[in-house]
């Protein structure tokens, strides 16, 4: 097929897209920030995609592109996916937000869903999971388990999503262990196993015996295993291959129900731009098995905490809470609003560090 016919076909597909989609299978596209084999974030999005294929069978066709860098190249990749006839495109990383908005403007008939963002349009919806709920439980276990009172945290980029996680883990570690300290390393990457392993090692060498991570590979687990007496948590996916230690529990993303739901909406013609933010209660965030390396009573407390968060009885950001600069954030009994959380850009009181600008 030469270039001209390719372009005409693409244009034809676009104009006919609306009329034809009753008969044709719906094409769902996915843009991934890492490789599907990262064992973490992208792995779980791909599990969601596979669940979509299984659920709909012939009625849906899925396409995906892995390891798309956040930035200018993302726009090209998303445009290409839209041109190739996708009806709905899921862009699964925060850094795709502006590229997604830009492409969505050019393709009004294609639906877009951006993960973890906040900008919406008529054909752009956003969805995210309340990972901070899971991090509260990790923080609780971390605070109880640490012997050196130093907890290491491998952070990716200084965005609200990551800062929320640090705060939530810290608040709940501090609650059960007032002496706890956080060492935070900003890796400036979502996925770079060598750097993540180095970061984990640096934290361990600085005395941390619990490592939390907001990056996507299992390299920190491997480094912790080598060090011996360090515990870690699975991030985004279960990372069960490192159980019972160093991995003692995990936060698992479960995107499948959401993907199936939204693709169904496209099929029914009922799709509308939305803003979804679900947590443990709705099943979007799962807590991986707490292994026997954790004492029975700590495990029971952690599960009770999970239960109270899931039922909505307890909110991980409940006052009294101060900001790191000492000013009051939440009064006694007050809970943080979603708007506050979505734009969170400060540490809570007690974290002795600066957020890089």
């Amino acid at each position, binding site marked *: 097929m030469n270039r001209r016919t390719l372009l005409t076909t693409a244009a034809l597909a676009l104009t006919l897209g609306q009329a034809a989609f009753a008969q044709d299978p719906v094409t769902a596209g996915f843009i991934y920030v890492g490789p599907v084999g990262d064992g973490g974030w992208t792995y779980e999005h791909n599990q969601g995609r596979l669940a979509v294929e299984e659920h709909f069978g012939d009625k849906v066709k899925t396409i995906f592109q892995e390891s798309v860098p956040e930035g200018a190249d993302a726009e090209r990749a998303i445009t290409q996916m839209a041109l190739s006839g996708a009806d709905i495109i899921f862009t699964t990383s925060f850094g795709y937000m502006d590229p997604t908005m830009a492409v969505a403007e050019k393709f009004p008939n294609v639906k877009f869903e951006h993960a973890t963002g906040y900008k919406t349009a008529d054909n752009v919806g956003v969805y995210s999971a309340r990972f901070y709920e899971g991090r509260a439980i990790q923080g609780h276990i971390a605070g109880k388990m640490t012997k050196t009172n130093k907890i290491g945290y491998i952070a990716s980029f200084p965005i609200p999503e990551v800062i929320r996680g640090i705060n939530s883990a810290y608040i709940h570690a501090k609650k059960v262990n007032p002496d706890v300290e956080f060492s935070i390393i900003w890796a400036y990457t979502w996925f770079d196993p060598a750097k993540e392993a*180095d970061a984990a090692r640096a934290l361990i060498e600085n005395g941390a015996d619990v490592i939390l991570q907001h990056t996507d590979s299992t390299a920190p687990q491997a480094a912790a295993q080598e060090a011996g007496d360090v515990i870690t948590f699975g991030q985004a996916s279960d990372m069960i291959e490192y159980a019972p230690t160093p991995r003692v529990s995990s936060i698992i993303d479960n995107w499948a129900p959401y993907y199936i739901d939204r693709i169904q909406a496209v099929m029914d013609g009922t799709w509308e731009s939305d803003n979804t933010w679900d947590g443990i209660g709705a099943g979007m965030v799962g807590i991986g098995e707490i292994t026997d390396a954790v004492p029975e009573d700590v495990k029971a407390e952690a599960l009770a905490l999970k239960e109270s968060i899931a039922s909505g009885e307890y909110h991980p950001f409940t006052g009294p809470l101060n900001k790191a600069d000492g000013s009051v954030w939440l009064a006694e009994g007050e809970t943080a609003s979603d708007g506050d959380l979505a734009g969170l850009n400060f540490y809570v009181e007690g974290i002795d*560090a600066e957020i890089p600008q």
Partner: protein
Amino acid sequence: MDLSSINPILLVASIMVSATPILLAAIGEMVVEKAGVLNLGVEGMMIIGAVTGFATAVSTGSPFLGFLAAAIASAIFSMAFGLLTQFLLSNQVATGLGLWMIGLGVSSLVGKSYEGMKSPPTPKLDIPVLSDLPVVGRMLFSHDIMVYLSLLLVLGVWAFLKFTRAGLILRAVGESHDSAHALGYKVVLIRLAAIFFGGACAGLGGAYISLVRVPQWTEGMTAGIGWIALAIVVFASWRPGRVLIGAYLFGGINVLQLNLQAAGANVPVALLSASPFIVTILVLVIISARGHHGAPASLGRPFHATT
């Protein structure tokens, strides 16, 4: 900020681990460039080495066989570049870039079934007496064998280029392939041998990442280390000793900035991460101002025997 939590002994040990893959790849590439060939495919050869080494080590249970297989596989892989550039006279820059992309693709294909596995641990070499020494023992004498091998390799390459006839011929081929050819040296064969050696070194560097530094396989895990190795060759102005300094500088700053962060030092991370590159630019400016780059005169130029 609590800088006292940084343990200098562990820091030096970490720097050596972090620098070793860069050093291995860079010293190999330096030999290739000394022979007058610019192979930009270091990253691709490294990742081939990483996946082959990991797969071999997992299936045989022996990390040493893993390293061996990685060196052989990457050396053979580099021959694709050798054949294209030396016999078919393809453009070296484009072919090198192609090698990088093919390496990435092939490695992720081969590596699919090895995801989530763990490699057998590479034993630490506990040198009797020396590793029991206070401070330096832990710092310098309790690493895995590859750390020492990489240092020996630098020494060997330096001695080879400086003192041996073969080293002189290799340099002659890199400086002026026409003259070397006129003297009767087999330019193409010598260059192929250099490319083969460079491939083997890059393979060892890749395997070091997947067997020691991370130890597991994930797609794209070399994450730009091959490109840093290329930069270091230029930084070192094609001298083995400076390659060593460059590799430890890059590896060192990387580890140091993570340690500073872990200790809570309030340093601009972006600046620290960029500092090796800033230093490279400075060094380039200085050597340019002096008018002597040290680059082999025939670097990157295709050779075709006309007589």
